[in-house]
């Protein structure tokens, strides 16, 4: 059970960080 939680927590943290990348990318300034 703890293994499942650990793996899901890792995936969730990376997914959140990718969303954070998308969020920063949507801000004015980095689009060509």
């Amino acid at each position, binding site marked *: 059970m703890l293994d499942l*939680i650990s793996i899901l927590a*890792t995936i969730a943290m*990376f997914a959140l960080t990718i969303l954070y990348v998308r969020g*920063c990318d949507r*801000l004015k*300034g*980095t689009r060509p």
Partner: protein
Amino acid sequence: MSLNGWLQIAVFIAAVLLLARPMGLYLARVFERRRTFLDPILTPCEHLLYKLTRVDPAHEMRWSEYAVAMLLFSAATMLLTYAIERLQHILPLNPQHLPGVEPILALNTAISFTTNTNWQSYTPETTMSYLTQMLGLATHNFWSAAVGIALAIAFIRGISRRETNLLGNFWVDITRAILWVLLPICLVYSVALVSQGVIQNFRPYDTAALLEPQHITGADGKITTVTTQTIAQGPVASQEAVKMLGTNGGGFFNANSAHPFENPTPLSNFLEMLSIFLIPAGLAIALGQMTGSPRHGWAVLAAMVILWFAGVLTCYWAESQPNPLLHGVDQHVSLTQSGGNMEGKEVRFGIANSALFATVTTDASCGAVNSMHDSFMPLGGLVPMANILLGEIVFGGVGAGLYGMLVFVILSVFIAGLMVGRTPEYLGKKIEAFDIQMAMLYLLIFPLIILGFSAATVLMPSLGLSSLANHGPHGLSEILYAYTSATGNNGSAFAGLNANTRWYNGSLAVAMFFGRFLMIVPMLAIAGNLARKKIVPASAGTFPVTTPLFTMLLTGVILIVGALTFFPVLSLGPVLEHLLLRAGHTF
């Protein structure tokens, strides 16, 4: 303090500065894909790797694609390490028959090594098998260091390129960082360490009979007689080399570089310190080379050296002072004793090399230790903590130090622009609102994680305070140091704190993860934005970034930001402990 000690410190920084230029020129050649002497051997390997992994080396990435590639790579390697740790009991190279690592500890360790932190909540020689040390942990020492170098190079490209949105190819950059930089140096370096007595074997642990049996009284009052000592073995030299060169810091043994099998001689100690600063110093020079402004690279390196010197001066001075509570004891330097505070220090290194090592390992985000920081005098212990709190930019971790420093450079240029009332420029690029927004995001995430977790821990006696060995201001320092070290991806510990609990393993894992990745994203966003811009010709109003004035402004901005952010909590920790020690109180 002694002349001998200062001479050794002077030789160390002279060696760093001598090696910085050749290292920087080599790094610039590697990442600009110019010819190097290793090409005949490594180019075929590189092409084979791209073919096997179906990577197109000609494909260049936008900043967001670069960031996502880095995140996916980190996620895959983190989960691999987690699996190896959990399954080590059924995998080979486990002569001690160690069980699988407990899940939360395995997650903490996987995050720790993926983020280049190498925080260790466990005792390696009784927890990790040889396979886990090599395949799960040492590989991360290469990968996480290569990721840091790749990110710094991407940032430099953002500064040097114009009117493009491309920063390079992440897969190409980490491949070249590993093949051209880390592997060749580690190969030679690990053999040099073996020559000094660092061990390299796969033997089961040795057992030695004690000359004088020890009687130990257990918690239940039962007396046990110990007649033997277990001496841990393992493939240490190969891991030690990249542990220092990659500013990783995770020891093969619990005692880290204080262990005679990891760091046996003064020469191995010198090489280990030198290798921590080698790539970060080289990257500063590579910055100057790749942006066409070599003097700018030296100006940035000069700021690093000034901050390093302030740290080592304070730490060496504090550790050389006699302990005011030891009345009637001669604590001065003489031919027969080191003088000052030798608690927690190795006699073979002495005070100068312990203070220097502590400063170097926390200036860079290495975290290896050759003495116990928890045993330093309060102001001596303040130095390693303050070094990390400045943002790990004084040389810093491989790559991470340079890109952190460049965020401060952008802030300094912005402040200089405000002072003269002109739009700030950095090497011909106008610094605009988006760049400063991202720079502030980068700078604010760091204290938010450290102070947030430290405050939460202090407020939870059953979870946070029950693990402390000391109370009062020293206890606060132990908690603060743990979250500072984790968020700064340093990995050294103040000890005195049992961090192998669910709260600390979980919260420190989160601090390490967000301290690494949430700071990388705004940094890459700045790089992507800078690459888009046109070059503006320098004018009379342009603030030059190649002069001593720039170096002083940069140093001042770093110190002011760090001091304003963390002075209140430092005053409640080591500063208060120092004052109370003078009044006769210890904790």
